């Protein structure tokens, strides 16, 4: 490494630092089947727990008889709410300040709710036990419609005092959870009253589910000798789980070790705290043995956290020329039986108030009403930062509806309303400070890349052919320009259950110049072990290949709030850079001492400190690391390590321009994605290969959501999409090939300018696919239809527009 014949560029390339498409270190084990996921964990004497679940959406639990179940060979215990009550664990706090039954306490509120926990020697005996637990139910009236819930006399949550405030203020009705208002209502309504043009539309973003390929699970092991509880689980926030587990169980926090092993995808599903985690802990305490709980796919789709289910009534006002003058939105949010929404405490509807999107809208108003229904609880950010995807879908649909009303091209309407590059940092009408952006540049690049004018001509020709009876296919062009808001904190605004949303990194350089770094986050496929090492490599000049990265073990990793909401790069990535810079500062002093010059007379050069003006005099970081440990340096402690707890000054605001083309068969409702172009601006790019992979994956999740994926219930609250037969996940066959592109507008407040990207393609992808479908039908008068755009709904649209005559 001391080779002076290498140019600085060559030395930098050897580090595989930021900007390098470094191959992933994780893949060596994953490609050989040597990952270590929670269901791979096997401990001596480990038991298995499984749930008896409610077949009813709303019922009283009259009795539970476990006698026959306990006769099954291998079944050791059947735990019910009565057993948990003395421990105070029959209910648990939710992330949204509500509480949720761990096991049915007198009644059930959704189909699939946990009623009893059967503990057995293995999963087969547990399943046999579940079959034989007899539960007597008394059915109650079911409410699956949030609007009906607010009118109904049926009280879903009998445990709540109807007169008392909820966690987020006054409740208007016994099935109402909260009202959250942002912006200036009076001013917005005044603008709406006097505007040239106002359009109003109900935009529904249906209920869906993150459905990671690995379901949720945990292994709890209470060591009665040491009094220490070890809990492995599918946790996107292991440190928060430890604190919450300590607070609700009374076990001292130092006696709880939480470990997130490899996680098979999260997408928000593994942010929540689930009854299975609690029950595995209790069962381990009761039996003195390790207890594993792993849900099956039906459990996962029926009971763990869903996403979306927002009814967004919108009004948008504009001048005749198309300049938007105001935006109004009222959202009815279906939260299911308990409010287990995963949002920062002060944001009961997440960052829905980013719904002014990429546009310079002078005045806006948003109100959200949360409602209880007989559906599963949740409301997590499915590859999204706290309701941003709902917000993006809302504004991108409203823009399209406005374009129809104004008879304008939707690309041009966006262009004239974009926030301009020189307006950043930009204060939005609903309270955010957008850090940086250059929307016009991105938009023009995207339109040019797809030959937008050419596409419109082709579309016009196809429409003519359709009208002439030459084809039964319509062509739709979907446009979206989205602005994300990711990277929660700052702590002053953002906490979950009182836990501040900072994040952390600790770096230790070893004497020979390799290193270990530990973070408060946890990868679920994002490749943190690869990319965070790249940040360190660039910041301190050691090869990424010589840096081990660890996350997820609360006994060793510094405290952090975990990985969701695209917060790892904006927050933990910043912590990583800041910790590295502390090390670099000390290294500078060591180098100066070794080179016998003043600290200010050396400067950092890729992988070394050189004497200013004399580049032949230098000390490499490897030499400095050795000296740090082994040479007495006056005024300096031995060692070379640092930790940073980073509280970001602001969120970051990634953005992107997406354009897709879809062909629609009006007779069968079948759709075919002909092309998809995605331009993402996520600020500084750490690993382009991983960014592209994230975009492909997020777009495919968006494709699923927009085109068929839903959690559906019938009027009795029966779950209709509980297997992968009916819950749509596209295969390689239905998935198109994507074209990716980028611009780079660094975040001015982030140490390395990075903004985060994982969720952008889901946030921007859904409106893009949906807008394409709508666009195909625009010439026939369609303004708004509800997702998902599966075959029958597309067909229904065509039928209602008279295209089947």
């Amino acid at each position, binding site marked *: 490494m001391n080779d002076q014949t290498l140019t600085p560029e060559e030395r930098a390339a050897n580090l595989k630092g930021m900007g390098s498409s470094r*191959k992933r270190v994780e893949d060596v084990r994953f*490609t*050989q*089947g040597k*990952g270590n996921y929670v*269901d791979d964990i096997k401990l001596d004497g480990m038991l298995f727990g499984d749930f008896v679940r409610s077949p009813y959406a709303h019922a009283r639990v009259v009795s539970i008889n476990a006698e026959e179940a306990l006769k099954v060979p291998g079944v050791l215990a059947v735990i019910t709410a009565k057993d948990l009550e003395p421990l105070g664990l029959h209910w648990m706090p939710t992330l949204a300040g509500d509480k949720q039954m761990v096991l049915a306490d007198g009644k059930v509120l959704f189909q699939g709710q946990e009623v009893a926990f059967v503990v057995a020697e293995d999963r087969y005996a547990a399943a046999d036990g579940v079959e034989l637990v007899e539960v007597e139910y008394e059915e109650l009236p079911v409410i699956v419609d949030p609007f009906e819930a607010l009118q109904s006399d049926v009280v879903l949550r009998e445990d709540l005092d109807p007169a008392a405030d909820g966690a987020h203020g006054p409740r208007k009705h016994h099935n109402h959870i909260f009202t959250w208002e942002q912006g200036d209502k009076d001013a917005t309504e005044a603008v709406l009253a006097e505007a040239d043009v106002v359009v109003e539309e109900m935009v529904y973003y249906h209920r869906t589910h993150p459905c990671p390929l690995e379901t949720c699970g945990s292994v709890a092991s209470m060591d009665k000798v040491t009094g220490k509880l070890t809990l492995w689980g599918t946790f996107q926030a292991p440190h928060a789980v430890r604190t919450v587990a300590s607070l609700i169980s009374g076990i001292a926090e130092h006696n709880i070790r939480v470990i997130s092993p490899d996680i098979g995808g999260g997408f928000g599903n593994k942010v929540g705290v689930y009854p299975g985690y609690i029950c595995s802990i209790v069962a381990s305490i009761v039996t003195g043995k390790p207890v594993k709980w*792993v849900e099956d*796919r039906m459990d996962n789709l029926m009971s763990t956290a869903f996403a979306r289910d927002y009814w967004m009534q919108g009004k948008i006002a504009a001048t005749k020329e198309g300049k938007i003058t105001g935006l109004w939105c009222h959202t009815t949010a279906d939260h299911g039986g308990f409010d287990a929404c995963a949002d920062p405490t002060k944001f009961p509807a997440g960052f829905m108030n980013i719904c002014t999107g990429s546009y310079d809208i002078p005045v806006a108003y948003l109100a959200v009403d949360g409602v209880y229904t007989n559906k599963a609880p949740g409301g997590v950010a499915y590859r999204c930062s706290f309701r941003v995807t709902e917000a993006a879908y809302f504004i991108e649909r409203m823009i399209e509806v406005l374009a129809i009303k104004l008879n304008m091209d939707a690309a041009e309407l966006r262009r004239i309303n974009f926030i301009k590059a020189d307006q950043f940092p930009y204060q939005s009408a609903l309270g955010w400070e957008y850090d940086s952006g250059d929307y016009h540049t991105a938009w023009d690049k995207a339109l040019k890349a797809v030959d937008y004018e050419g596409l419109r001509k082709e579309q016009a020709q196809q429409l003519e052919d359709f009208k002439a009876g030459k084809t039964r296919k319509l062509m739709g062009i979907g446009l979206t320009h989205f602005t994300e808001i990711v990277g929660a904190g700052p702590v002053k605004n953002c906490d979950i259950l009182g836990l501040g949303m900072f994040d952390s990194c600790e770096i230790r350089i070893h004497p020979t110049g390799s290193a270990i770094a530990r973070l408060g986050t946890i990868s679920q496929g994002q490749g943190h072990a690869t990319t965070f090492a790249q940040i360190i490599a660039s910041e301190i000049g050691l090869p990424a290949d010589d840096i081990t990265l660890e996350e997820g073990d609360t006994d060793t990793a510094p405290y952090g709030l975990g990985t969701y909401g695209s917060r790892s790069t904006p927050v933990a990535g910043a912590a990583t850079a800041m910790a590295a810079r502390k090390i670099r500062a000390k290294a500078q002093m060591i180098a100066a001492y070794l080179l016998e010059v003043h600290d200010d007379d050396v400067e950092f050069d890729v992988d070394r400190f050189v004497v200013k003006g004399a580049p032949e005099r230098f000390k490499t970081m490897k030499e400095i690391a050795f000296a740090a440990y082994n040479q007495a340096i006056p005024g300096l402690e031995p060692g070379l390590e640092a930790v940073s707890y980073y509280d970001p000054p602001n969120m970051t605001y990634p953005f992107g321009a997406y354009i897709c083309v879809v062909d629609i068969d009006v007779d069968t409702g079948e759709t075919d994605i002909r092309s998809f172009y995605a331009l993402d601006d996520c600020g500084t790019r750490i690993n382009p290969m991983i960014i592209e992979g994230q975009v492909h994956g997020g777009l495919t999740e968006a494709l699923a959501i927009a085109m068929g994926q839903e959690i559906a219930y019938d009027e009795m609250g029966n779950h209709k999409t509980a297997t992968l037969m009916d819950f749509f996940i596209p295969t390689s066959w239905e998935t198109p090939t994507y074209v990716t592109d980028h611009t780079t507008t660094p975040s001015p407040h982030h140490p390395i300018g990075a903004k985060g990207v994982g969720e952008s393609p889901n946030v921007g992808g859904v409106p893009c696919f949906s807008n394409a479908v709508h666009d195909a039908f625009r010439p026939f008068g369609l303004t708004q239809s509800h997702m998902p755009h599966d075959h029958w709904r597309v067909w229904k649209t065509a039928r209602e527009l008279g295209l089947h005559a």
Partner: protein
Amino acid sequence: MAKMHVKMTVNGKEVEALAEPRTLLIHFLREDLNITGPHIGCESSHCGACTVDIDGKSVKSCTMFVGQANGTDITTVEGLTNPDGSLGVIQEMFREHHGLQCGYCTPGMITRAHRLLQENPSPTEEEVRFGMAGNLCRCTGYQNIVKAIMASADMLNAQKEAAE
């Protein structure tokens, strides 16, 4: 129920065991043999995470009882690593082309790709997409998986040519 005696070859090794007849092959591999590469994703034969190769066929081991596999020759993703411990060609190409993220679907994907390329050594992209349609991935959007398999085909064909 009485346990049954089963005997099979797994990744080149003969294994014998007593198992309850209702034991699903995926559980037998994972729990009894500690072969945890094949994963459980959907349990209804839709996702392919549990794919293993049985007598030259790609099979979803969540939908097969251990008795059905009695006497067969099974290869899992663990068996596709080179004898010297280095990554096999398909494993290496998945890494090279970023054909995986969380790694959960990967063992099934690679095992399925192995059989696909045995049957069709020079597939078109369309054939790869059709031939991999029994394996779901939630992370990658398949684009890089397809790329990795196409690259694997090229490399395997080049190796074959060099050997001839």
